[in-house]
């Protein structure tokens, strides 16, 4: 489709307008430009989607080439897009959820002096993210990959006057650089192996020339996955995401929940053929994903900052997506990516609405009883929580259940048990959040309690739309019924090759009763988590305190996030700083500065010896001229 370029170009134009002239434009105009660019991008994406649907499923694959960026010998890297069902899903999620969050931001950021700067960054982010998901080669994808990283940095440190915010921005950038380095090495190895970076060419060459389990493919996929670990906040590179909550809340919703952090999952799904040919990497991805899912969920149990709980929840849900991809259920992974974008954006925006109402309060221990005062926020937040907990018939139920189901079906019993436990933790911490925020006695600061107000329309309407999506978003994958699993059939052409290599799935669907029974188990586990949260935080509010005292050691470990930040500080940051300081002292100060200063002082002392000749007295100069003349005469005469 030739006009696909307008989709990333529209937000980029918005970025240029707001970035160059935003400060001189009226606030209203800035908001209209930013939201209008996103809205038009969403409409263009819908149109593209419609045209894509007209094609036969096997023909839904376009590669419009706009410009040959690099051409060296046989190698060429193009500015060229790849429009297929997978990128279409991502484009719709990015533009659709992005548009809602832009609209929400108009209300949320209304008082901020950096209004135009905020929208310029947000538009730039959307543009870079669209380039990332639409790229048809790894190099252009990397351009978008770095672009979203830059915007993430800029928006985390948006309130740069605050020390913690600028620190968090730097942390996010540096941790991401580690991942990006792996990603870049993966690109190099891909080029070295295949001589091309175009996805289609790579996959064809891989299927034709390599058998499953080839070491080179394992190397490529593992290196690419290092990039995904950084961008999608997986162990061990997840540490930046909780700190990224220093940014404005809509940013957390858009970048650090719905879109950017899912780039790693998208990349793994995009390279599904390579991963399918590298069973070791698949196992690694599944293991990392599952571990992260449970690990982050356990930290989320005891955090008190509303946004941090959601941040750990995001890390955990990303783990589920990787688990899905790792066991070969790419459709389930992408499905969860999409539903997660709906309900996590909703939860973050809901949290933003609470924070907005309480004039900046983020500590859930100092909230409570907000149900009556914030009815819209409460209702939508509750729906988001039900969705993430995995209660039928909310979106999260279908997607998470599909991941769990596929995990068990692919024979990963241990991972299934762990992931199921993680689901219980998810339900528990989410409803702990709901109960502490909206139920019980008000523990508000009396000063803040005075101002509590429901969100304005620009904030409430996106919440309602996202809540509706969180409810209905999962229905497109309703299983069992003939003609069902619409989402899976839509994506089937993309993952066709990978599933063929992996050799399971396909015609032999497991019996319906087994699927139903496993669904029952998932819902039962989620309900158990919710019930436990109810017992702890509504029925007997003293119980958490007693438990924290009884298991004080475990509580401390969880509360301090397993001391991972401290570990990294002591094991990596401090030694590096020490090494830098030593290098500075010895190499810079002594060696380099010493050489430069030494050159200077040698010439200084040499010149000190001869400078006495210059007396400044004209007589002396005249005398030396005379002496010279006499010598010349003598010389000539001697000849």
């Amino acid at each position: 489709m030739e006009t696909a370029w307008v989709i990333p170009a529209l937000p980029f134009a918005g970025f240029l307008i707001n970035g160059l002239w935003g400060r001189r434009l009226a606030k209203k105009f800035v908001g209209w430009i930013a939201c209008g660019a996103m809205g038009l991008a969403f409409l263009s994406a819908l149109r593209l989607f419609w045209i894509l649907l007209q094609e036969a499923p096997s023909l839904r694959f376009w590669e419009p080439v706009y410009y040959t960026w690099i051409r060296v010998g046989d190698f060429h890297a193009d500015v060229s897009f790849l429009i297929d069902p997978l990128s279409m899903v991502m484009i719709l999620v990015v533009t659709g959820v992005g548009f809602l969050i832009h609209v929400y931001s108009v209300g949320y950021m209304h008082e901020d002096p950096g209004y135009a700067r905020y929208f310029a960054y947000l538009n730039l982010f959307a543009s870079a993210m669209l380039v990332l998901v639409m790229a048809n080669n790894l190099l252009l994808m990397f351009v978008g990959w770095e672009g979203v990283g830059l915007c993430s940095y800029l928006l985390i440190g948006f309130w740069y006057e605050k020390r913690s915010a600028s620190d968090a921005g730097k942390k996010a950038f540096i941790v991401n650089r580690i991942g990006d380095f792996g990603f870049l090495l993966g690109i190099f190895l891909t080029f070295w192996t295949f001589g091309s970076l175009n996805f289609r060419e790579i996959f064809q060459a891989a299927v034709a020339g390599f058998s499953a389990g080839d070491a080179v493919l394992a190397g490529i996929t593992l290196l690419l996955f290092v990039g995904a670990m950084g961008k999608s906040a997986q162990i061990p590179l997840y540490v930046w995401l909780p700190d990224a909550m220093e940014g404005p809340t809509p940013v957390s919703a858009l970048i650090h929940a719905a879109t950017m952090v899912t780039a790693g999952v998208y990349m793994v799904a995009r390279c599904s053929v390579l991963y399918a040919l590298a069973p070791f990497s698949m196992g690694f991805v599944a293991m990392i994903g599952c571990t992260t899912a449970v690990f982050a969920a356990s930290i989320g149990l005891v955090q008190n900052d509303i946004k941090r709980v959601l941040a750990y929840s995001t890390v955990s849900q990303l783990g589920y997506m990787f688990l899905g991809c790792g066991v070969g259920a790419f459709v389930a992974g992408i499905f969860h990516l999409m539903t997660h974008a709906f309900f996590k954006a909703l939860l973050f925006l809901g949290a933003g609405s609470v924070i907005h109402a309480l004039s900046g309060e983020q500590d859930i221990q100092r909230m409570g009883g907000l149900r009556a005062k914030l009815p819209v926020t409460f209702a939508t937040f509750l729906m988001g929580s039900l969705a993430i907990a995995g209660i039928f018939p909310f979106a999260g139920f279908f997607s998470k259940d599909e991941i769990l189901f596929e995990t068990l079906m692919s024979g990963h019993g241990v991972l299934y048990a762990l992931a199921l436990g993680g689901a219980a933790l998810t339900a528990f911490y989410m409803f702990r959040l709901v109960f502490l925020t909206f139920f019980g006695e008000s523990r508000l600061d009396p000063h803040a309690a005075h101002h509590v107000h429901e969100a304005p329309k620009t904030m409430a309407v996106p919440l309602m739309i996202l809540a509706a999506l969180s409810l209905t978003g999962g229905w497109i994958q309703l299983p069992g019924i003939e003609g069902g699993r619409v989402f899976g059939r839509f994506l089937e052409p993309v993952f066709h090759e990978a599933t063929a290599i992996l050799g399971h799935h396909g015609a032999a669907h497991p019996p319906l009763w087994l699927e139903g029974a496993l669904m029952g188990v998932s819902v039962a586990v989620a309900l158990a988590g919710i019930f436990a949260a109810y017992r702890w935080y509504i029925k007997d509010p003293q119980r958490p305190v007693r438990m924290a005292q009884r298991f004080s050691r475990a509580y401390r470990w969880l509360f301090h996030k397993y001391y991972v930040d401290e570990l990294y500080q002591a094991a990596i940051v401090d030694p590096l700083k020490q090494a830098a300081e030593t290098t500075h002292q010895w190499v810079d100060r002594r060696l380099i500065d010493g050489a430069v200063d030494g050159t200077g002082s040698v010439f200084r002392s040499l010149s000190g010896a001869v400078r006495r000749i210059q007396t400044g007295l004209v007589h002396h100069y005249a005398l030396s001229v005379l002496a010279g003349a006499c010598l010349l005469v003598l010389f000539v005469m001697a000849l």
Partner: protein
Amino acid sequence: MAVPVHYYIIVSALLFAVGVLGVLTRRNAIVIFMSIELMLNAGNLSFVAFSKALEGLDGQLFVFFVMVVAAAEVTVGLAIIVTLYRNWKTIFVDEVRLLKG
């Protein structure tokens, strides 16, 4: 009855020596200047003497050049001395030694 050429040469050499001594020993910039003029004119004298003795016009031509150069040099030199006096209230060259190393 012509004066032999070596008489001129001796006078010229004496004049030149006086000039050199003046430049080397006097402190007053104007006197040094006059001494330089003496040296130039010592040169002129020998030019003219040889021109006459060798019956060629080249030497006399050179003298004109030297006189023009000397005139130009005087204007520049005197301007420098005036400026020096304005700024330093002295024309003694040994008191002006900013270029001392």
